[in-house]
C-alpha cells in the first residue's frame, strides 16, 4: 500500500504535521528511528512559548513565531497538554543591555507582538521579587508561556493516531528514493514504506535525509544546551520566565517554572561534536548556575534534582527551512527548526499542509475528526470525593506507584495503552511523571519495569530505559545469568 504522506521524524514538528494532516481524508505514516516519539530536540529543550520579540522581522522565524503563539495555546487546550501563560521578562543590567531590550521591544512591535512593556528595575522587581537588585530594566512579554514539550509531542501524535495516522517506531531510515510520482523509504531493518509526499521533519538529521535525495543545500550545526531542574519545593522562586539579553549564541540562561511546577535553569549554548551529543559537562552546569544567579540570586542549586543536555538543530543563516524542494517533486523540508520552533510548531505544521497541497495533494476534510485528547492527568485533578468514586470503579488508580509525583498504577498502565503507548521506562516517565520527582525513580523504577512488562508482554530483563541497548537489567536472573 502507498501512503499519501510519509513523515520522517516524530519530534514535535513531525507529530504536529501528522495531526494537521489527520484532519483530512489521507493515509499518513510517521517514521521514527527511536523506541519512542519526541526523542531529539523536542525532548530536551526549554519548553518556552516565546512571545515573538526576538526573531528578525521578515524572517520565517518571526512569521511562524507570531502566528504560532495563539495556535499553540489552542492546540495545548484541545490536547490537554500541561502549559501556562505565565508571561516572560527579559532582564537588562546596565545601559548597554537597556538599549538592547529597547531594540527587542521595537522588533517585537514590528513583528506584531501585543502587550509588550518596558519596565524599570524596581517595577520588574515588584512583579518578580526574586530578581537581582542589579537589574536596571526589563521587557515584559505577557503572551509568553511555558509548556511541556515532550507531552505536547506525545499528545499530538497520539491524537493523530486516534484519527487514523500510523506511527512506525524503531524505523531508522537508511535510504529514500524517488519512485514513480512518489517515494520509497527503506529502514535499516529492510522494511519499505511508500508514499506520494515525503516530509523531512527529521530534526537533527534533516540534512542527512536531504542528502539521500540529493537535495541538500544546508548543513545542520548541532548546538548543545545544558539544563538543571530543581525540586518543586523551590518551583515558585519566580513566576514568569526570566530571560537575559539574547546574544547570537542563543537566548541566554533563563530561570523559569516548568509546566509541572519545578524550577528550570539553562540552557548553555555550545557547538557539540555530533547531533547525538547528550552529555552534560562540569563547565556547562557551572555556567548555568553562575548565570542563573545573575538574574535570580536566590536560586537554590542544592535543590537540583536532575540535569540534562539537549541539541538544537541550527543552520548557518539561522532561519527555519520550510519549503518544497525545488529539485524533488513532493519533498517538503521542515528543517533547522531551532528556537522558536516549539512555539511555531502548529504554524509550521499548517504551512506544511499548504505546501503538500501545492505539491498536488488533494485535501478533503475527514468526517468525525476529533482534535481533542483525554487529559492524562484527569485523575490527579479530581477532588478526593471524585477520586474515591473513580478508584472504586478502577482500583488500580488507588495504588500509588511513584510516591514523589503521586502517580498511580492505573495511570502508568494507561500510558502504555494510550496512543502512542509507552514501551520503555523513560516513555512512562515522560507520559506520567513517574520517576521525575526527587527520588528520580529510585523507589518506583522496579514497579514501573514490572508494569511495562505485564502490559506489553516483554520479559522484565528486556525492558529498556529508552529502547535499543538501554536494558535496565544486564546481569540476568539470580542463579541463572549471574557471572561465575
Amino acid at each position, binding site marked *: 500500500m502507498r501512503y499519501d504522506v510519509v513523515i520522517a521524524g516524530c519530534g514535535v514538528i513531525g507529530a504536529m504535521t501528522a495531526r494537521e494532516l489527520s484532519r483530512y481524508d489521507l493515509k499518513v505514516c510517521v517514521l521514527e528511528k527511536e523506541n519512542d516519539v519526541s526523542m531529539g530536540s523536542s525532548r530536551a529543550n526549554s519548553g518556552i512559548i516565546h512571545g515573538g520579540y526576538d526573531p528578525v522581522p521578515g524572517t520565517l522565524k518571526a512569521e511562524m513565531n507570531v502566528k504560532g503563539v495563539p495556535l499553540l495555546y489552542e492546540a495545548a487546550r484541545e490536547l490537554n497538554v500541561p502549559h501556562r501563560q505565565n508571561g516572560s521578562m527579559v532582564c537588562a543590567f546596565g545601559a548597554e543591555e537597556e538599549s538592547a531590550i529597547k531594540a527587542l521591544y521595537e522588533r517585537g512591535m514590528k513583528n506584531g507582538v501585543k502587550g509588550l512593556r518596558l519596565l524599570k528595575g524596581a517595577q520588574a522587581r515588584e512583579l518578580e521579587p526574586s530578581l537581582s537588585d542589579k537589574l536596571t530594566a526589563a521587557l515584559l512579554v505577557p503572551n509568553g508561556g511555558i509548556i511541556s514539550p515532550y507531552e505536547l509531542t506525545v499528545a499530538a501524535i497520539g491524537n493523530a493516531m486516534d484519527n487514523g495516522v500510523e506511527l512506525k517506531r524503531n524505523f531508522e531510515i537508511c535510504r529514500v528514493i524517488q519512485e514513480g510520482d512518489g517515494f520509497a523509504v527503506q529502514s535499516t531493518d529492510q522494511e519499505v514504506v511508500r508514499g506520494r509526499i515525503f516530509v523531512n521533519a527529521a530534526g537533527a538529521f534533516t540534512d542527512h535525509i536531504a542528502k539521500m535525495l540529493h537535495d541538500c543545500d544546508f548543513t545542520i550545526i548541532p548546538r548543545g544546551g545544558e539544563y538543571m531542574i530543581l525540586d518543586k519545593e523551590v518551583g515558585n522562586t519566580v513566576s514568569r520566565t526570566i530571560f537575559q539579553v539574547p546574544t547570537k549564541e542563543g537566548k541566554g540562561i533563563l530561570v523559569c517554572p516548568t509546566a509541572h511546577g519545578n524550577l528550570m535553569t539553562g540552557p548553555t549554548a555550545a557547538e557539540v561534536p555530533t547531533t547525538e551529543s547528550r*552529555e552534560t559537562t562540569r563547565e556547562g552546569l557551572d555556567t548555568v548556575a553562575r548565570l542563573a544567579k545573575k538574574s535570580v540570586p536566590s536560586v537554590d542549586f542544592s535543590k537540583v534534582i536532575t540535569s540534562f543536555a539537549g541539541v538544537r538543530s541550527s543552520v548557518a543563516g539561522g532561519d527555519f527551512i520550510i519549503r518544497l524542494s525545488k529539485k524533488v517533486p513532493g519533498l517538503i523540508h521542515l528543517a533547522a527548526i531551532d528556537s522558536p520552533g516549539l512555539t511555531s510548531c502548529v504554524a509550521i505544521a499548517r504551512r506544511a499542509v499548504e505546501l503538500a497541497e501545492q505539491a498536488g495533494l488533494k485535501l478533503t476534510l475527514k468526517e468525525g475528526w476529533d482534535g481533542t485528547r483525554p487529559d492524562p492527568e484527569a485523575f490527579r485533578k479530581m477532588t478526593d470525593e471524585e477520586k474515591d468514586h473513580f478508584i472504586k470503579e478502577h482500583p488500580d488508580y488507588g495504588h500509588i506507584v511513584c510516591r514523589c509525583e503521586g502517580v498511580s498504577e492505573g495511570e502508568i498502565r494507561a500510558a502504555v495503552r494510550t496512543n502512542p503507548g509507552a514501551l520503555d521506562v523513560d516513555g512512562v516517565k515522560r507520559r506520567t511523571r513517574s520517576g521525575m520527582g526527587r527520588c528520580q525513580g529510585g523507589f518506583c523504577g522496579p514497579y514501573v519495569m514490572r508494569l511495562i512488562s505485564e502490559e506489553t508482554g516483554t520479559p522484565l530483563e528486556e525492558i529498556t530505559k529508552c529502547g535499543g541497548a538501554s536494558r535496565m537489567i544486564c546481569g540476568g536472573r539470580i542463579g541463572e545469568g*549471574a557471572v561465575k
Partner: protein
Amino acid sequence: MIAHDIVVVGGGPAGMAAAVAAYDRGVNDVVILDREETMGGILRQCVHNGFGLHKLGRELTGPEYAAHYAAEVKKRGIRTLSETMVTSITPDLLVTATSTRGIQKIQARAVILAMGCRERARGALNICGTRPAGVYSAGTAQKLVNCEGYLVGKRVVILGSGDIGLIMARRMTLEGAKVAAVCEILPYSGGLKRNIVQCLEDYHIPLYLSTTVSEIHGNERLEGVTIAQVDENRRPKPETARFIPCDTLLLSCGLIPENELSRAAGVAIDRRTGGAAVDQFRQTSVPGIYACGNVLQVHDLVDYVSDEAEIAGRAAAARVLEEAPTGETVETEPGSGLRYVLPQRVMKTEEPVDLFLRVTRPFGKLKFVVKAGERVLATASRPVASPGEMERLRIPAGALTDGVEKIVVELEEEA
C-alpha cells in the same frame, strides 16, 4: 470519615515499634498505614545479617528483624493497612490516605511519622555526562536483586561508601558481578567500620578515598565512568582522571529523610538533620504529631530506630491518655565539630534525657561536654568519633533545673 486514637504513617521498623510501644502504654486503637504490599519497609530487601544485636540480643537478617516486630504487632491485634499511601496530614491530625479501596479520611488524636528516608539521586549529585541505563541508587539495585531476583549488571563501580553501598558491593560480588571500585569523595568513609571490613576488605574490593565519579559515559547502557581524585573543595582534579569500564554505577551518597508530608502538615524541619525538630518525646512542632526512625534522623542501626520509635510511641499514647508531661522547654545547639544534636528542644522534667548527635568529621580522643551557660550538665569521653557512627549522651535526672535556658553540646579534642 473514621477515627483512630493513633495513626502511624509507615510500617517499617520505626512504625511497627512505635505502634507496639503505644499499645503497651495503654492505647489499643492504633492503626499502621504502609504503602507497600507488606509491613517491614526497607528491611524487607536487607537480606544480610547484623540486625538486632543490640535490641534483641540476636543477630538477624532484615526480614527476620521485621518479622519479629510484625509478630508483635499481630499479637496485639494492631490494625495494619498495606498498599495504603498517606497523601496528606493536616495540623489538626486529619489523615488522608489512598488505596485500592478508595480515599480514606481518618481523624487521629495523635500521628506518628515513620516514613523513612530516600537515597540521594544522581541529579542531586550533579555528575555530568550522558544519561544511559545502568545508573542506580544502591537501594534500587538491592531491591531488584533481593526482591525481584535480577542482577542489574556485571561490572560495577560504586560511588559513596555509605552502608548500603558497602553492603551492595558484597552482595553484587556474591552474585558473580565484579565490583571494580568503591569511590568516596570524602577522605574517610561514612559507613560503619564493620561494613568496610566485612564487605570490602574481605572481598579485596578497592576503596578509593577523596575520589569521585566525574563523568558518566555511554549512550544506551552505561559503558564506563571517569573517576578522579578531588581537591580540598571536592572538585575533581583533571590530571588524576581515569576511565573505568563498567555497565553499572551504584550510588550510595547519603540518605534524605522523606518529609514532604511533614512539611505540608506544618511540621518545622531542622536543616541539619533533614527531619522534624522534636523534643525528647519526639513530638514535633505540631502538637500531636510525633516522628521517629529515619524520617527524623538517619540512623546507622535499626536497633536504635526501634528504641527511638518506642519513645515516640509511648509519648503519643501518653498524649491520647491525657498523661503527657508538660513544662518549660529549652533549645539544644550543636557546638563546633558537631553536625547536629537531637532532640532540638528539651522539656524540663525530672527524668534523664538522652541526646543523639553526629560529629562533622573523624576525631581522635575527645570529650563531649553538655553545657547550660557555664554549667556542665554532663560529659562523656570517647577514644574516637566518626560521622558514620551516631553518639548518645545522657543528661542525668534532675540536671535540668530552673536556671537552664539553653543546652549546648561542645566537643573538646584531647591530646
